[in-house]
Every structure is written in C-alpha cells, then in structure tokens.
C-alpha cells in the first residue's frame, strides 16, 4: 500500500460543515477516500450528503467505529484543540490545512504527536494524496494532469509550486505514489525526514522528489539521512529561495533565514554532498528524475 493513506483508511473530517470544508470533503469522497464521519460541535444529527455529523470526535467514533485518520478544516486558532481532540481519541494520522497556527500551539502539537508516535501533517498544507486511492486535503480535481498515479514520492513545503513541479514530473513520464505536503510553517507537525522514512519502506515508491525552500533545517535533516545511508532510493530536490535576501520572510512563515544558516544554497550543497540530485530550476526536476532512474 501507499504511505500514510489508501482506500481502506477510515477518515473523519472536522470542520466539514463549512463551505470550503464541505466542498473538499465531497471531493475527497469522490476520489475514493473512505470518510466515515464529520465532526462539528452543535451539528450532530445533520448530514453532509450521506455523511453523518457528530458533536465531538469521541461521539463520532462511538457511533461509527475507530477512525484511522482525520482531516481538519478548522481555523488556525482552534487547530490545537482539534488536533488534541483527535490525538486523545487515538487517531494516528491528522492532516491540518489551517494557515496561521500560532507558533506556540504548533510546538505543542509537534511535542504531543511525537510523544504518542502519531503523525500530524501541516499546518498550512494542501494535505496528502495517493493518486487513485485517497486524498486528505485539497488537491486539484483536474488531477490527472499533475497527479497521475505512479512510483514517485513527493514531499513539499508548498502548494502552487508543487503543482508546477509535479506537472514536470508527469510531463517527464512519471507518476506519483504519494504526495505529502508538510506545509510552509516554521514548525510543521511532520518533517521531511519522517516522510522520507516512510518512502524508504514503501515498495511502491522508486524515487522521491523533495520541494524545499530556504529557512529551517528540514532539508539539512534529509541530507543527514542520505549521508547516513538511512535513505537508499534516488532523491531529487528543488529548493526555492536561492536569491532570497537575508532577513526577509518569503511568503511562508517558515521561509526566512538569519545568521547565515538555513539558506537555499547551503541546503543545496548539503544535499548534493549527501548524494541527492539537486535541480537549480523546477523545470529540471523531470530530467533529473529520468537520469536517477536511468530512463
């Protein structure tokens, strides 16, 4: 099976009664995702299509059985509470789309998920998708053009840029096993290194594309992983922000450097030294992938 999700993953959606939440919940289901319940306090008894709504995660699980994963369309200031509601209910994979989670909340989310061995993907992410199987998040419905099923694992900090890069991957004749958006925040719940560990073990993934950018240390951690031999498949990396001026936040909250570390160039050097194929420009991704897989 693919990493993180597949057709059997039992999914609960929080915030599915809002306009955006209900649109994407419908789309998730249309793509084959096995959504078992929606949770919105005060709306128990209502339905979204066939989907029953419950007051709380615990009530949803009591009625519908345990959920494997949760998709959160919940505003940033309520995200910490929603994540803990899911963690406390024993849900082991949580994806949160919220853009703007307070930093200290994000740190607590990260700490709690690590402590319990659970995975929280995001915030500020489009989510995760295993094309042809399941989706937790908001990926295009013109999906076949950029998210064709295949054997390339993709992990990314971006949204639009991922559409751009992945379309290159598809144009080069490849498809995607799973795409995991770890999000653009300075404190993502799940880090590249953790996704990569799953890709390493995934028999359906032949190679991985990482779409990184300046700021933080996630790409450096991946370089360490490669250097230590913990990841053995080909890795193609694209790192945005090569020319970003120091001290400026480039859009994503996490895309900022100071004091010389965390720069895109530094990351690229570390990755190259560790054996990754590093694209200077997004357009090179497909070529490098073909080269890596000897096609």
């Amino acid at each position: 099976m693919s990493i993180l999700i597949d057709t059997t993953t039992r999914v609960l959606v929080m915030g599915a009664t809002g306009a955006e939440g209900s649109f994407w919940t419908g789309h998730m289901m249309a793509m084959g995702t096995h959504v078992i319940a929606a949770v919105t306090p005060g709306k128990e008894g209502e339905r979204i299509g066939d989907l029953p709504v419950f007051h709380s995660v615990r009530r949803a699980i009591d009625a519908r059985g345990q959920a494997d994963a949760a998709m959160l369309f919940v505003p940033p200031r309520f995200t910490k509470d929603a994540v803990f509601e899911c963690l406390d209910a024993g849900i082991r994979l949580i994806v949160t789309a919220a853009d703007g989670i307070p930093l200290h909340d994000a740190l607590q989310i990260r700490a709690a998920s690590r402590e319990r061995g659970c995975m929280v993907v995001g915030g500020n992410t489009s989510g995760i998708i295993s094309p042809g199987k399941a989706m937790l998040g908001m990926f295009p419905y013109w999906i076949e053009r950029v998210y064709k099923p295949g054997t390339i694992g993709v992990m990314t900090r971006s949204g639009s840029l991922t559409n751009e890069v992945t379309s290159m991957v598809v144009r080069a004749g490849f498809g995607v096993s799973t795409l995991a958006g770890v999000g653009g925040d300075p404190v993502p719940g799940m880090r590249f290194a953790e996704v990569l560990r799953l890709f390493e073990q995934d028999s359906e993934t032949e190679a991985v594309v990482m779409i990184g950018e300046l700021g933080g240390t996630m790409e450096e951690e991946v370089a360490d992983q490669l250097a230590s031999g913990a990841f053995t498949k080909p890795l193609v990396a694209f790192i945005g922000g090569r020319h970003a001026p120091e001290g400026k936040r480039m859009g994503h909250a996490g895309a900022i450097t100071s004091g010389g570390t965390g720069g895109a160039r530094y990351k690229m050097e570390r990755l190259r030294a560790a054996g990754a194929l590093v694209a200077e420009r997004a357009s090179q991704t497909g070529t490098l992938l073909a080269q890596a897989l000897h096609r």
Partner: protein
Amino acid sequence: MKLHEFQAKALFREYGIPVPRGELAESAEEAGSIAQRIGMPVVIKAQVLRGGRGKAGLVRRAASPAEAIDAARAILASDWKVRRVLVEQALEYERELYLSLSPDPVAGAHLILASAEGGVEIEDMARSAPEKIQRVRVESMRGLMPWQARHIAFSLGLKTETARKVAHIIEQLYALYAGRDAELAEINPLFLLPDGSLVAGDAKVAIDDNALFRHPEFSQDSADFDSDIAREAAAEGIPYLQFDGDISLMCAGAGLTTAVYDLVVDFGGTVANYLEFGGPNYRKSVRAMELCIRNAPKVILIVTFGTIARADVMAEGIVEAIGRLRPACPIVTCIRGTGEDKAHEILRAAGLQPLTDTEEAVRIAVALARQAADREAGETGASHGGRA
C-alpha cells in the same frame, strides 16, 4: 512582529527584568533634555528593526547633553530613516552575559540558550566556541520548571548570588516569552554590574504574528514597514516585500512566488516587489495590481498555478484591473490551475497572451524590462553600455 528595543524593554520592566533608565526621543533636542534628566554618560540608540545598527554608527555614547544632542541629530539624519532614538544611562559593567528563548521546531519545545560571554552574535559563538553556550530544552506542554532555570544559571560559573539572579531573570524572560507568544526573546548583552546587579543592555523580542489575536496590546507601528505600499499590503492581508528593481511580481502561492523571484534573478532581471495574491486573496487582483503599479515597474509578471485560487477568477480580476488602472507597463501572464482554459480565453479576449510555462514567462518579463530600461536610457541620453 519584531518589537523595537524600547518596546521590548517596556515588556522587560513589566516582567521585572531590570533595564537601564531610559526614555524615547523623536528629536535631537528632546534627546538632550532626557540625557540631562537621566544623568551622564548616556547611550543614544537608533530604534530600528534592521540588524547592524552598531556597525552603522547608530548607537553612540555621549558624555554631556550637548554631545547627546549631536549624537541624536547624526542618528536621526542617517539614511536608515530613523524616527526615534532611545536615550539610556550608559552603564559600567564587569561582564556581559547572554540569554535567549526561542523555539525548537524538531522537538516541539522551547530552547533556552545562555552564556557567560555575551555581547557577541550567538550564531558566531555557536560556531567558534559552542562549549561556552548552555542549552536547556523546555517542554512546550509543561513549560519551564524552576530547576531548569537554576541549573542553567548555576552552570555558567558565576557567583552564587549572581547565579540566583540569573535564574530569576530566566524565569521572567520565559514568562514573557510564553505569556506573549514570542518567537524570540533575547537579552544580549545582559550586563553584570560591579555592584553585582544585572541589567538588560539590549532587548530583542519578536511576537508571533499568528498569535496577535491573543495579544491586542501589540499593534504594527507604521515605522516598521519598508514602505507605505508594504503597510497598505499588510493592512489588506497581502504578503508583500519591497525591493527596488524593475519587475513587479504578482503571483499566487508563496513557494511559487519565491521560485519566480529566483528565476528573475537567474535570468538577469531585478525585482520591484514580491506580492502574493493567492490563497484567501485570489479575488483581490485589482488591489494587488494597484499596489504593484505604485512601484512604477517596467513589467508586471503574473504567475499562478492554483488549486483553490481559481485561474478564471484571477484572470477576470486582472482584466478588470487593467481596465480600471491602465498600467503603463507591459503585463506578462502565466496562469494555470483550476479553471485555466476559461482563464486563457478571458486573457486572450483582453488582448493578453496566456503563457503556460513559468520559465518562458520569466524570460519574456526580463527581456521586456531590459527593453524598457534601454528605452529609458535612450530617452534620457544615458548609455547602459555593457548590457546586452
């Protein structure tokens, strides 16, 4: 949101962290009379958010009110656009320490860094003498335990009474950092005075923008923006960065905009501004273009590849913006994603060429900017000689 030194020191006072006597001045004369009141010597410090003010000569010592006036005048007249100076008593100290609190994203914790040798950049010390830095990780759910503050303070090799005071300051700095959702709280240097007391020489505090809703006491000060346009963009919720080049980026998606910025520079162009109108702002084409035009760019480069940010809606907005704002410069569009076929129809109908390849779009924009520059150079009679 970075706080100015004087704002951070006001917070320090609130949390019982000792700071030097000092007041804020907006003119040289005011600085002089504050100096008089406080007593000599004083330090006059530019209140700016950029780093490196010391090296730029924007922190000056004065031994008399007259010197204070001169120093303040020089600082206020610098090209750093300094609006205010902090006039503070200049302290004689025995030693400079370092203390900070910042997030540890991997552990989901907070990190206390401390050193008995402050006054230098902690990044430099981390490279040159990491053994001089004490580190303690604070669990984010549990918060700082008193023993952690004591352990770090007593591990700095200070006298017992000094160590106790440092432990107390660590607890107070943590209270500030946690209570105000800071992403950084730093005291560098923390002066140890000859009488054994401790005083914060400088104060760096940055509040998490995403948590400002919990802290209505903070408001973005107009002086904190690079430009008026940046301030207006912030008010609108549009991510914006001011540069001084030729090409206005009007893109959707932070990662994509950053990648386009890289390509512009790769291909020899310069950026007038970074602007994102994706995400929740994808219906704000008119407002976005208005902000871009204010920079008098040589080209507006529009690149999108949206999922929720619908291409057709953005295209409609762009056409409307062009109609209303009649920009003087050419516009390059590379709009893809949800609804792109319709978007391309809309653009074509308005006489725009809908590109679909990002690199091609950037190359065209750079070429157009160069033509415009050459044209201007020709008009003004100046020559750009070497440029191809």
